[in-house]
């Protein structure tokens, strides 16, 4: 008899591991159950499979909880049952011996309290009152509701122009999104249950780059109505485009030298090449939109008098301050300032300088990587939490690292060290320790370590953007925390015919959300002006071919070699090849046709 054994996985254990992976994949495809009660029951059930059976609350309690939840689903429960469920969940949380039990109890308690209205609806109406739809997963993940399975099928059929045409039904900036969209659609992709989610963004990019020819979208008869769009970013452009298709005459008033908003003044050219952005914007303008550049507007009421309606989409272009000593010193700059200058073609020269970038979001990565391209000798990204807590996308962080940026996690800036010449000579930071979870996020606190000074010539502050809404406030536009207030229809209360949307209304968000805001506003402005123009689906979609389950990995886009790319502002990403795109398209499960799509999904043929 050997005294000890090396750990070996049995065949059963291997299958167990595979099943665990499958659970993880399913959960990653967001919606586990469309009904909160069913979800809670499944959750409790899954938790109870982990129980060792030693202790009462976990062994019996979780099982009882499941039974009572089942009663709620089958119409056997009363309001008393709901009290019983809550009491039992609380007791499991309070009295279980280990995390298997008390975590299950805590989560069940959270669900029962959080979904209380729905639980009551089940008991009183014998029906689920939760309104989460189970339509096509990717489409419901896309803020603009782009018909993703439709355009993937078109790309697969070799009809790229039709694919772009279909995308433009809901999103007039397909190429921009093909290059920089955060693709929340992919989070929902049901293909993830099988292997990996579809590479949706790359397919979109491919379609835009392989159009067989241009086309002109159908336009409604001119209405004679004139609309002013304040701000030429994605929300403004989207609103202007759809209003123009609806027959209205739009003038975009842009404060800066160029259109594009954050697409130009926030996203660096190596991710979104200028000429491609300009090309896409020009296509929109060619529908017949007037532009007045270098035009600043704040008096909305006066503007409204000259136009039949006004759309405010001023974005979030003001910077946020650290509020630290030395922040006024020469060499301290905000991300917004820097990227704005770069957007106007004024490239700074950081040759030989050491740059500290403060922040952990995508903008911090953009600033860091732009600094590298401006010749910086060393770029450090200073973040007070862990790298894992950064809000920047993983590929942005990886990209910055590959280009030589240093990630200094768990360092909170204390003050900026300024030399006698009034110039920055370092950033003083306090090392942190990660700890208690607050509002769902582990928060840092000062570690028992001494301050550290990071020597540098430049400090770039990238801790978020603010909205320059003060001047508008003075002209009667309501704001809350700096954001422009609107009703659900995007109308600004108290100002007849004035609408608003995009970053200035939501706070800094994604391109695709801004595009959708513009689209929604266009529909509502059209309605406000007394029309009911429809933007319609005008391409037919290839019919579905059932192919059964075939596992196949996801093709990823590649990047130019870091050493090479970091010396220029040329595009860094290589799109998928035709071979890769065709394989990617063949992976689409066509949820517009299979599953719930056949019943309630399908497609939005007009809006």
């Amino acid at each position, binding site marked *: 008899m050997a005294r000890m054994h090396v750990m070996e996985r049995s065949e059963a254990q291997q299958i167990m591991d595979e099943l665990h992976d499958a659970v993880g994949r399913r959960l990653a495809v967001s919606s586990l159950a469309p009904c909160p009660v069913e979800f809670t029951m499944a959750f409790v059930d899954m938790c109870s499979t982990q129980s060792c059976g030693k202790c009462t609350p976990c062994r019996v309690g979780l099982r009882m909880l499941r039974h009572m939840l089942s009663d709620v689903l089958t119409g056997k429960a009363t309001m008393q049952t709901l009290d019983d469920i809550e009491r039992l969940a609380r007791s499991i949380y309070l009295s279980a011996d280990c995390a298997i039990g008390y975590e299950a109890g805590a989560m069940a308690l959270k669900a029962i309290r959080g979904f209380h209205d729905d639980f009551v609806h089940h008991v009183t*109406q*014998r*029906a689920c009152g939760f309104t989460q739809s*189970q339509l096509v997963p990717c489409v419901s993940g896309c803020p603009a509701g782009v018909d993703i399975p439709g355009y993937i099928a078109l790309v697969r059929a070799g009809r790229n122009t039709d694919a772009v045409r279909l995308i433009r039904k809901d999103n007039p900036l397909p190429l921009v999104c093909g290059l920089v969209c955060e693709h929340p659609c992919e989070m929902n992709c049901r293909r993830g249950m099988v292997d990996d989610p579809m590479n949706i963004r790359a397919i979109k990019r491919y379609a835009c780059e392989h159009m067989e020819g241009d086309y002109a979208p159908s336009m409604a008869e001119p209405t004679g109505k004139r609309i002013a769009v304040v701000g030429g970013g994605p929300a403004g452009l989207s609103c202007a485009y759809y209003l123009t298709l609806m027959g209205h005459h739009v003038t975009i008033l842009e404060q800066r030298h160029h259109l594009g908003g954050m697409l130009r003044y926030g996203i660096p050219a190596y991710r979104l090449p200028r000429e491609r952005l300009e090309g896409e914007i020009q296509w929109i303008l060619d529908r017949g939109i007037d532009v007045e550049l270098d035009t600043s507007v704040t008096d909305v009421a006066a503007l409204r008098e000259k136009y039949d309606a006004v759309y405010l989409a001023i974005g979030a272009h003001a910077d946020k301050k650290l509020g630290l000593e030395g922040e006024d010193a020469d060499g301290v700059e905000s991300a917004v300032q820097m990227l704005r200058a770069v957007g106007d073609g004024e490239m700074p020269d950081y040759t030989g300088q050491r740059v500290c970038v403060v922040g952990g979001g995508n903008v911090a990565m953009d600033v860091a990587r732009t600094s590298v391209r401006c010749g910086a000798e060393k770029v450090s990204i200073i973040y007070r939490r862990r790298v894992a807590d950064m809000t920047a996308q993983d590929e942005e962080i990886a990209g910055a690292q590959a280009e030589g940026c240093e990630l200094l996690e768990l360092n909170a800036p204390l003050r900026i060290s300024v030399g006698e010449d009034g110039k920055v000579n370092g950033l003083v930071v306090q090392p942190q320790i990660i700890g208690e979870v607050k509002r769902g996020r582990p928060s840092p606190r000062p570690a028992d370590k001494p301050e550290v000074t990071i020597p540098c010539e430049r400090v770039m502050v990238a801790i978020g953007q603010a909205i320059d809404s003060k001047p508008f406030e003075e002209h009667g536009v309501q704001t809350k925390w700096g954001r422009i207030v609107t009703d659900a229809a995007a109308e600004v209360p108290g100002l007849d015919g004035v609408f608003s949307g995009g970053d200035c209304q939501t706070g800094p968000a994604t391109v695709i959300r801004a595009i959708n805001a513009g689209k929604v506003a266009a529909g509502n402005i059209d309605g406000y002006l007394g029309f009911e123009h429809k933007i319609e689906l005008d391409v037919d979609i290839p*019919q*579905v071919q059932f192919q059964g389950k075939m596992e196949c990995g996801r093709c990823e886009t590649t990047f130019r070699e870091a050493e090479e790319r970091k010396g220029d502002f040329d595009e860094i990403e290589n799109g998928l090849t035709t071979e890769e795109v065709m394989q990617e398209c063949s992976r689409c499960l066509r949820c517009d046709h299979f599953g719930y799509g056949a019943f309630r999904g*399908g497609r939005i*043929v*007009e809006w």
Partner: protein
Amino acid sequence: MVEQLKTKVSARDAERIVTVTVDGKQVQVPGNTTILDACRKAGQNVPTLCYLRGINEIGSCRVCVVEVEGVDQLVASCNNYVLDGMSIKTNSPKVRLARRENVMLLLAQHDTTCTTCARGGNCKLAEVSNDLGIIDFPYKSILANTPWPHDFPLIRNNDKCIRCMRCIQICDKVQASHVWGITNRATHTLVDVAGGANIHDVDCTLCGQCITHCPTGALRERDDVMRVYDALADPDVTTIVQIAPSVRTSWAEHWGLSDDKATIEHMVAALRPMGFDYIVNTDFSADLTIMEEGTELLEHMRRNANGGSGFPMFTSCCPGWVRFVKAHYPELVDDVSTSKSPQQMFGAVVKSYYAEMLGIDPHKIFSLSIMPCVAKKAECAYPNMNDACGDPDVDCVLTVREVSRMLRADHVDVANLEPEPFDEPLGYGTGAGIIFGATGGVMEAALRTAYHIVTGKVPKDDMFDEVRGLKGWKEATFDMDGTKVRVAVASGLQNAKELCDAILSGEVSYDFAEVMACPGGCVGGGGQPIHDGEELAGARGKVLYGLDRVAKYRNSYENPDIVRCYEEYFGEPMSERAERLLHTDQHGWMMPAEWIRQAEEAPAAGE
């Protein structure tokens, strides 16, 4: 912005002809053919359960699955399409396994007490299950046990519901009424009144199309047969039964007789031995309706010429339509004819003129009608349908299905009946009255009489036949000696909705509009015998037009019984007595939506 969701299938695929092999046999079909249709074309039937052509092609039951060579998993044949070279097996070992398993799963959710089911012997589920030879059954029964108010004319029994979604689709797509919805999700999915509401609180038109399209006995009419037996058993009560025009086309379908062996006179012969005292003909009151409605139409046109509503006069024969227009188009209700439906006119005549003529106390009359309709059960119970003597003018309504069950209960030898005439008077209806049972029939009948009133001439045979046919929305303009009459005919409430929307938006304008709730009119009524997967309105309608063609009198004003009844009792159309007995106030009772609107418009307490 309401988002409409539907799949648009590619037209391009229809042009390709592809070759497929079904169980070894080759067939050629267009590229947009479903696998199901290709199999059937190859002579190989594939069972279906949830499938309803054009309405419910969602592949939910998974009974129609087939094996496609090269694909490991099975394919639903009803909503997948052929590909060139596809090889299909309709009865492979995999198919046998899955088809049988899926039917057994449906049986587990189904109350299989077929002996006490309204659809016993006429159930698609039983047919599929019996065909598969399912005898031993391994699963535990899990029934829904949802409550239902049994006083409502339409009964839902979720213990028999197999969640095929047909009722939801019919109600949404064909009848634009959205009564049914999915009320629980995931493994507890239920189909019930949308949102879990009480059926009394929603605007169900009681068209009954969900019943005639249900594959099982989950939906049925309220069975009122026992009330009829009670009346027949009471020696103090005189039972008078009227039979609607379209019933003659379908009453003996259960016995599968040819049209000449199953005429209305055969039906009279079948009913007589049951003990009915008088058997009379709703065709008579259809003619009476024309006299009133035709006169009313000319009055309505005069009013419109002098600044009336500008909307057409709508027919009021169909209670499903009246319920629909009251619920959804309050602005059109005043343009709905005040003439009662033929059923209610007959009821009022029976308990006044007819009772006087027979010398019996109207309070001792049991007035029964046999209708192709479920909404008629509600109509006879409206609080203002009691004009003759204070009691309900019609006491009870049976659908054709209930009558068919009564004949079976009495073991009537339906195949060997000798035809018998209706009781006179009130036993005769003209060809115009007969065609009331088909879409366009009321319109045509009214035009014939209106033509006579306007021109003094006898209308030429079939001069108004443009309004015939199954098209959902028909229109025509007729010239009556210089008076132009613009008419529209709609059947199916989705078509009615489109008609009403177009009228309200000013897109179209008519003088007279006929609407019937059921597609094809009463011949396609929700109270007709059920033949799963077959739409019989067309065939039944042909029978009516055939009878009209050979009728002695083809115009309502020529009906000797009508002439006599005006001479003896009513004087002339729209006389004071006619207004009291033959017309009604369409605002005299309320649909749920009307209650809600009234409550919303009522000044709040304290104002």
